[in-house]
């Protein structure tokens, strides 16, 4: 089973984080025989620790350390946000990897094209979908049609939409890969009690452990990455569960802490040689922070839907994903089913008093959609370190500064109108929608890939422009957000990165 490595063993690749990026990269490297130590700040839950209780589970697996600014909703647990995600996995479109060429330079954005094409990414999308068991791909059937999906489809057809599907979800419709088929339990955001939803907790991590090339250290909060005078990283300093500080020597480091923590760690690793943060000669670290254009629209329908009976996201409408300049904004979006528990629904209903309570009482008739759309990068949207506030580890607290771009506001308005029309076409009545920053939390862009080293932090492989043995392996890499929910692309990029690291190692370049 899992082996252990000595702190002074400098032949290991240290992967920081065990979620979609870190868990996948760890397993892919270990499968190739490369020794990996994965440092995870959180603890390792068993399936029996997963309860259908959002508040309880946020305490058990949420990242609840001090933060300032725009709210984020992340996880500190083995599996990271793959424990909380909904499982929707659309691919990027070709033009979304060339947003600068397609949209032009929108005012007040920092749009650039990705340093890779869809042709290069497509084989890795195939591998990612197979790995994750995405419904409707690789001979896997589409997902079960929940009542909420049937509402989405019926309304979508009335609207004239053509691309409506219950496929493209990384939740097993049937037993596969040692995991059961979905039982439509609901509570996907609280972790999947039976492991039907793909999470690295019970896929990538145990598979890596079975290779004899992998060690997972939980409760390991990374404080700093050290480097030498030759410009290479040499060790990772972390605090263990008991608060003891260690340094694990390294051959290479890959960071996948989910955008906020990835930024914070690189900034907290500043040195005389890297005064603005490790790998930040461009000044781009922490900038170009993107979140996706999201909304949540709730409607009371003429009959019962009971959207709690099933997965949160059981299908999507793809017709609005394209770039159609005549809509008045650049990029596109997906309309996806939503569903939520009673407490969260009550929180989404505005106001108080008889009207609000009356809407909440109609819970069984409630229908909902979630939207994920392209959010252009802006220099002003960034993550920085607070100059004086420290957390329990003595680390500077991250400050998240995000404002919606006018393009994103226009897209959100369009999505709210379309979602309202969809529900009204079936006789429904909208009782809640989001106008402004949504509660979706798809973090992207703070160490973006760029052809030119002055435009971003990493190259086309996710390798830091400044430091050859330092990699970034999470959504921080995204050059632009595209419309698609990010996890599939994070996984595809991690598989691709593992191939690259292995190749460089075999050529003794790492």
């Amino acid at each position, binding site marked *: 089973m899992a082996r252990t490595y000595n702190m002074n063993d400098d032949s290991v690749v240290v992967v920081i984080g065990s979620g979609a990026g870190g868990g996948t990269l760890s397993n892919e490297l270990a499968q190739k025989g490369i020794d990996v130590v994965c440092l995870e700040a959180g603890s390792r839950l068993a399936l029996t620790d997963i*309860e*259908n*209780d*959002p*508040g*309880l589970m*946020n*305490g058990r697996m*949420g990242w*609840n350390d*001090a933060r300032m600014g725009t709210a984020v909703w992340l996880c500190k647990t083995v599996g990271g946000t793959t424990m909380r995600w909904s499982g929707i996995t659309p691919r990027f479109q070709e033009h979304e990897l060339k947003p600068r060429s397609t949209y032009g330079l929108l005012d007040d954005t920092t749009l650039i094209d990705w340093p890779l094409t869809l042709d290069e990414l497509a084989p890795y999308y195939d591998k990612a979908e197979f790995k994750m068991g995405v419904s409707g791909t690789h001979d896997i059937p589409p997902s*079960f*049609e*929940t*009542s909420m999906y*049937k*509402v989405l*489809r*019926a309304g979508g*057809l*009335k609207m004239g939409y053509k691309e409506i599907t219950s496929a493209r979800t990384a939740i097993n419709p049937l037993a596969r890969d040692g995991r059961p088929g*979905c*039982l*439509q*339990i*609901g*509570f996907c955001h609280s972790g999947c*009690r*039976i492991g039907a939803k793909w999470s690295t907790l019970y896929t990538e991590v145990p598979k890596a452990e079975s290779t004899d090339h992998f060690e997972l250290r939980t409760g390991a909060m990374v404080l700093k990455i050290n480097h030498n005078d030759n410009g290479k990283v040499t060790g990772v300093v972390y605090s263990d569960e008991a608060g003891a500080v260690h340094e694990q020597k390294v051959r290479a480091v890959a960071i996948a802490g989910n955008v906020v923590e990835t930024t914070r760690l690189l900034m907290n690793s500043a040195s005389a040689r890297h005064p603005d943060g490790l790998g930040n000669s461009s000044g781009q670290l922490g900038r170009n922070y993107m979140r996706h254009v999201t909304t949540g629209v709730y409607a009371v*329908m*003429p*009959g*019962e*839907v*009971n959207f*709690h*009976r*099933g997965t949160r996201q059981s299908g999507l409408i793809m017709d609005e994903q394209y770039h159609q300049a005549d809509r008045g904004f650049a990029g596109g979006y997906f309309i996806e089913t939503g569903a939520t*528990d*009673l*407490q969260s*629904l*009550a*929180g989404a209903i505005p106001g*108080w*008093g*008889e009207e*609000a*309570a009356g809407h*909440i*009482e109609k*819970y*069984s008739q409630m229908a909902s959609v979630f939207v994920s759309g392209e959010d252009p990068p802006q220099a002003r949207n960034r993550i920085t370190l607070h100059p004086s506030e420290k957390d329990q580890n003595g680390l500077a607290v991250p400050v998240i500064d995000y404002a919606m771009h006018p393009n994103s506001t226009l897209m959100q308005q369009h999505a709210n109108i379309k979602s309202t029309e969809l529900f009204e076409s*079936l006789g429904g009545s909208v009782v809640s929608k989001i106008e402004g920053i949504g509660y979706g939390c798809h973090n992207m862009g703070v160490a973006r890939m760029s052809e030119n080293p002055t435009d971003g932090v990493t190259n086309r492989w996710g390798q830091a422009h400044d430091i050859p043995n330092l990699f970034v392996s999470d959504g921080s890499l995204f050059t632009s957000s595209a419309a698609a929910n990010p996890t599939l692309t994070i996984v595809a990029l991690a598989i691709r990165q593992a191939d690259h690291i292995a190749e460089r190692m075999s050529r003794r370049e790492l």
Partner: protein
Amino acid sequence: MSDSNITRRRFIVAAITFTGFASGVSMLRLSEAWAQSDADPGQDTLDGMIRVARLLYPHDSISDAVYAEVLDGILAATAIDASFADTLKTAEAALDGHQEEAFMDLDHDAQLAALRAVEGEGFFAAIQASVRFGLYGHPAVWQLIGYGGPSYQDGGYLHRGAGDIDWLPEAD
């Protein structure tokens, strides 16, 4: 510790981590504080808060006993979070100070007006969030509203109505 105390404590821990109304209070300190204290904020405060809860989220089909249980859990949080106790005191003073008569002596419409007069205050959002979280997290309320609650113990909804819907137009 009795069953109801366990339920109560579980609610508070969940409410605090979920709503963040006591951010900064660590889980460790919570359990320690709970072990040391079972303070009762007083019947008057409880009665006043039940009235406030009913004005915030009125449901005819939900009994006062259910509102009382929810408020009991919220008030117990004051034993472990002094800032939340202050929040409640501020709210009580503001509501009582709205008119010459005390809040509890006002009629329904006047109570509603008193509450509306303070809805912009910081304490209002904290109290609204905790009432909402407690009320709609209560199994008796789930049953009345038609929400199923936890389902894994019953095998989910795959064979219990996950796809059932009978009023949609036929798909083409």
